[in-house]
C-alpha cells in the first residue's frame, strides 16, 4: 500500500461513453440484492397467480362455459407483477438518492441524461426478456393445467395470443420505466412507490367509485392499466380502447413522465 503506485498510468485513457454508462448501471443493478429479489418476486407473482387461476377456473358452477379467455386466465398475474417490476424501476433511482450514491453517479456523468437513459436501458434489458420468458412459461404451464381438466385452451399460434404474451412483458417492463421516471421525479422511494400504486392499482377502482357515471368509462379507459389491457387481451373486455390506441396511450404514460424526469434531472441541484 504505497501512495506512489497511483502514478502508474492507466493503459488507455478511455473517455466517458454512453456504453460505459450502461455498463456502470448494469454493475449497479446486479450488485444490490433488492434487484434480484424484485425480478424473482415479479416472476413468482406471474407464475403463482397464473397457475392458481388456471387450476381453479373450471371449478365453479359455470364449469367449462366460464372459460372464455384461456390466455387471459394464465396471464392474470400481470396485474400484480407490474407493481413489483414498477418497484424495481423506482428503486433503481430512488436508492441512489436515499444512499447518496447519486452524487458519485452524477459526478462521473455530469451531463446527467445518459444516466437516466442508462437506467432505462438496463431495466428494459433485464425485465423484458425475463418477463417474456415468464409469460410464455406460465401460459404454456397454465394451458397444460386447463387441458388436463378438460377445459378450453389456447395455443401460441392462435389469433392474438402472441400479441398478448409480448404485450404482457411490455406492460410489466413499461410500468418499471414509469417507476424509473417517478423515482427520478420524486427522489423518494416511499413517495414514488405510493404514486405508482395509486396510478396502476387504485385509480381504476377508485375512479369507478368516485367519478360521475356520465364520463367515468371515457376517463378510465385512458389509465395505464386499462390502456395496457387493450393490447394484451385476446378477448377484450367491453369499453376498452382498440389495441393500437391502447398501446399509444400506454406508451404516452411511459414517455411523458420520463421526459419530465429528464428535464428536471438536468435542472435540479443533485
Amino acid at each position, binding site marked *: *500500500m*504505497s*501512495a*506512489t*503506485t*497511483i*502514478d*502508474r*498510468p*492507466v*493503459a*488507455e*485513457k*478511455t*473517455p*466517458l*461513453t454512453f456504453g*460505459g*454508462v450502461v*455498463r*456502470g*448501471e*448494469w*454493475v*449497479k443493478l446486479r*450488485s*444490490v*440484492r*433488492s434487484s434480484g429479489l424484485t425480478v424473482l418476486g415479479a416472476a413468482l407473482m406471474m407464475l403463482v397467480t397464473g397457475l392458481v387461476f388456471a387450476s381453479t377456473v373450471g371449478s365453479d358452477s359455470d364449469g367449462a362455459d366460464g372459460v372464455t379467455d384461456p390466455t387471459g386466465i394464465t396471464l392474470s398475474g400481470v396485474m400484480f407483477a407490474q407493481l413489483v417490476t414498477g418497484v424495481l424501476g423506482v428503486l433503481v433511482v430512488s*436508492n*441512489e438518492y436515499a*444512499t*447518496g*450514491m*447519486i*452524487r*458519485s*453517479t*452524477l*459526478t*462521473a*456523468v*455530469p*451531463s446527467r441524461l445518459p444516466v437516466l437513459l442508462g437506467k432505462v436501458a438496463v431495466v428494459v434489458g433485464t425485465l423484458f426478456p425475463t418477463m417474456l420468458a415468464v409469460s410464455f412459461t406460465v401460459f404454456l404451464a397454465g394451458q397444460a393445467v386447463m387441458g388436463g381438466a378438460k377445459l378450453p385452451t389456447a395455443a401460441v399460434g392462435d389469433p392474438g395470443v402472441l400479441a398478448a404474451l409480448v404485450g404482457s412483458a411490455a406492460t410489466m417492463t413499461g410500468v418499471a420505466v414509469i417507476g424509473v421516471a417517478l423515482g427520478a421525479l420524486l427522489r423518494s422511494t416511499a413517495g414514488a412507490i405510493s404514486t405508482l400504486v395509486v396510478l396502476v392499482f387504485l385509480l381504476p377502482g377508485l375512479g369507478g367509485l368516485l367519478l360521475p357515471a356520465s364520463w367515468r368509462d371515457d376517463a378510465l379507459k385512458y389509465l395505464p392499466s386499462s390502456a395496457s389491457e387493450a393490447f394484451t387481451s385476446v378477448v377484450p373486455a367491453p369499453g376498452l380502447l382498440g389495441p393500437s390506441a391502447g398501446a399509444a396511450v400506454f406508451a404516452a404514460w411511459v414517455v411523458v413522465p420520463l421526459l419530465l424526469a429528464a428535464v428536471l434531472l438536468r*435542472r435540479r*441541484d*443533485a
Partner: protein
Amino acid sequence: MIEVENLTKRYGPKTAVDGLSFTVRPGVVTGFLGPNGAGKSTTLRLLVGLDAPTSGGTKVNGKPYRRHRAPLREIGVLLEARAVHPGRSARDHLLAVGATHGIGAKRVDEVLDVVGLTEVARRRVGKFSLGMGQRLGIGVALLGDPRAVVLDEPVNGLDPDGIKWIRHLLRDLAAEGRTVFVSSHLMSEMALTADHLVVVGRGKLVADVPVADLIASTRRGVRVRTPRTSDLVAVLQGDGVEITSLGGGVVDVIGLSTEDIGTRALVAGIPLFELTPQRASLEEAYTELTRDAVEYRGTSERVAA
C-alpha cells in the same frame, strides 16, 4: 488547475458562496480552509456540477467540468457527504463508477490496493467503519488517474495511521505535478500538509496566501512578567506599541523586541521575571483571519477552531 470565478450560490434566502474567486495551481497542495458552514463543500459541489451556480463559474483544467470528454480523468473528488450504496461491495462500487469511463477491474484492484482496502474489497460498504468508507471515497477520487484531486475533509474518521497516509498521498500527488485541493476546518491539519491556503468565511474569500506568508504575517508579541506593571507600561508606551495587561503582573507587548524591553526595564530599574517572545501559531493566525467570518459561534466568546 482549478479556477473559481465570481462564484455565487444561493439556496433560497441563504447565500452559501458569495462572489468567490481563486485559482488552485498544480504541483502544490492547496488547503481549502474555513469554519464549518463557510461554503467549502458547496464550492466543491459547484465545481463538479452537482449544483448549478447562481452566478459566476468554475473551470477544471481550462474547461467547465461538464464539458470534458472524460471528467473522471480530469478531476477526482471525494465529497464530504456519503455517496455509496451500503448494500454494494467496495469493489462493485468502484467498478460501477469506473465503467462509465471504460475503467476496468485491473485499475479498480490497483486502486483498492493503494487505499488499503484489498482485503475487504468484497465486503458490503454498509459494514465499513468511517475510516474505511473514507478510504473508499479516496479510491473513487483516484480511479481515473486524474490531473486534479479534490478531497473534502479527507481526514474525517481516519485513525492516526490513516492521517499520516493521507498526508503522504497528498504530497506525492502534488509532487507528480497534479493539482491537489484539500478542504478542512482544522488549521492544524493544513499546517502539516498544505503549501498554499485558500481561506473562506461566510462564503467569501478571506485569504489566498502561501502558508509561509501567513505565518510571517501573524503579529508577534512579547510576554513580560514584572511586579511593577504600571511602571513598565509607562516606560514602554509609544507609537506603534500595543500593551495588553493580562493581570497577575503579566503584560503582552506588541511592537517592541525582547532586547528593547529588557534594556528599557534595566534603565528604569524595573525587575523582570519573564521575557518571552510569543509566536502566534498558525492556528491563531487562522482564528484571527476568520474571527468575523464564523457562522456558528458558541456561547463563550472564544471560538473553537
